[in-house]
């Protein structure tokens, strides 16, 4: 068993991949708690798909990918809010429209510029190809997100629980809302190479959802979520190594299976 776990780590690329998977697991599962409690799973999906045109645009103009991705994520959340307020459609409809539109735009740009990166890897991840520089960027993004959440935990709880009240007491609700949107975009970019933008939503939803089955307090919920997030990323990575399957697929699948197992366990 130990041998089974150690053997892959004799390779440099696997050590880098493991570190990346852990960082991504930690970051995504911290945010996951609030995504689940605020009911932002679909919105998260829209943001992750909208990161694609941002990345493609940055690639085309040689801009930093992180910047392009973050801007696109925020623009997507603004668009969802705009569609919702300017028409009578419901939130899920607004999200559906923005999600597909943005993703299509991304594909159109990519097909035109023909970037050197493999589109398949952007969409579904390729953690085995992570370079040490990529790991550094992922770690930096993860650090920023987790730091912000821990510093402003009380404000984030207040906002995700009751935004109207947060506004009434005089906190900057727009700032909090869009900071969360930016954090979601940064997490998605951090997870780009691990699970890819199509599958990242699994790490933003499954850990928090699993945690909600068991936790009685928010502290417990964070703890369970972190455990599930890190476990899924690491277990998925090993599965991907041993069975030579897509890392993004393996990680997302593990997270999903963990949720279903937990649900069955809970029912009994």
């Amino acid at each position, binding site marked *: 068993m130990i041998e089974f776990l150690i053997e892959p780590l004799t390779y440099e690329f696997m050590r880098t991949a493991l570190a990346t998977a852990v960082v991504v697991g930690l970051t995504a599962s911290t945010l996951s708690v609030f995504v689940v409690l605020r*009911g932002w799973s679909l919105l998260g999906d829209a943001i992750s798909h909208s990161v694609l045109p941002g990345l493609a645009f940055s690639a085309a103009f040689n801009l930093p990918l992180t910047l392009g991705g973050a801007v696109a994520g925020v623009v997507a959340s603004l668009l969802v809010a705009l569609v919702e307020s300017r028409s009578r459609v419901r939130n899920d409809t607004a999200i559906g429209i923005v999600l597909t539109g943005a993703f299509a735009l991304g594909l159109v740009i990519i097909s035109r510029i023909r970037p050197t990166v493999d589109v398949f890897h952007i969409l579904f991840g390729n953690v085995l190809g992570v370079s040490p520089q990529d790991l550094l960027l992922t770690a930096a993004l993860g650090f920023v997100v987790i730091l912000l959440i821990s510093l402003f935990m*009380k*404000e984030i*709880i207040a906002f995700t*629980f009751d935004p109207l009240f947060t506004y009434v007491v*005089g906190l900057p609700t727009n700032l909090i809302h869009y900071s969360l949107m930016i954090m979601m975009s940064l997490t998605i970019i951090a997870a780009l190479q691990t699970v890819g933008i199509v599958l990242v939503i699994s790490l933003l939803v499954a850990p928090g959802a699993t945690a909600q089955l068991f936790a*009685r307090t928010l502290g417990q919920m964070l703890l369970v979520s972190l455990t599930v997030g890190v476990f899924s990323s690491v277990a998925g990575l090993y599965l991907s190594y041993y069975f030579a399957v897509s890392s993004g697929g393996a990680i997302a699948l593990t997270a999903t299976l963990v949720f279903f197992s937990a649900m069955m366990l809970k029912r009994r």
Partner: protein
Amino acid sequence: MEAVKAEGLTVVYGRLKALDEVSFTIPSGSMTAVIGPNGSGKSTLLKTLIGLVKPAAGSFKVLGSTIDKMRGKVAYVPQREEVYWEYPLTVWDVVALGRIKAVGPLRPVRKGDRVVSQSLERAGIESLQSRRLSELSGGQQQRIFLARAMAQEADLYLMDEPLTGIDAEAEDRLLDILSDLRKEGKTIVMTTHDLSSTLELFDNVLVLKNRLIAFGRPEEALKTENLVQAYGSERVAMHLSDVRRVAGWR
């Protein structure tokens, strides 16, 4: 000083005029009931006063200034709380949110915070403080939001139908709490459909039918002609005159 001063307040939703040139002045340290039939603009009035709905015309001041300067000093308890009841927070946690502005960023609300425990006690829910939000009855949930508003240490309390859906004892209790707050110089404005003798407890009654029908002492504002104008029905007016008799106003 006046707690609320509205001048020609007009609010439109599309083509519908929810408030039509409403003007009134509410003195500090008073309790005002806002009455009117469904759709008469009661909730809209409160939402306008907290800055959530922007008036199309007219202006208003709260606590002698604009709402943007006074935010935090104004507490608001909506008609229906639209929160996720499964959020893993205890009663204490929710009430402690009222302290969020006072405590400031980068610091948690201390477990022994005096304002929080006092608010819990005054709302009569200290025994529930470690219960989870999802494990409470509707009336209990409502008191938590009142406690949260008190923890905010606001000077003006805007409450949308707080008497709806609670039993007689809880109603008495709530009205006691509000009277206490008034004694401390706080101002209370609440909407209600309860056209009973309860209204006699208030300093002023504001009768609304999208435009202002009457504003003044209960016995003045609740005159039959005002009620007929607001509710358009002799029956309600009759009912009200009953109330007036019970209250001994004649």
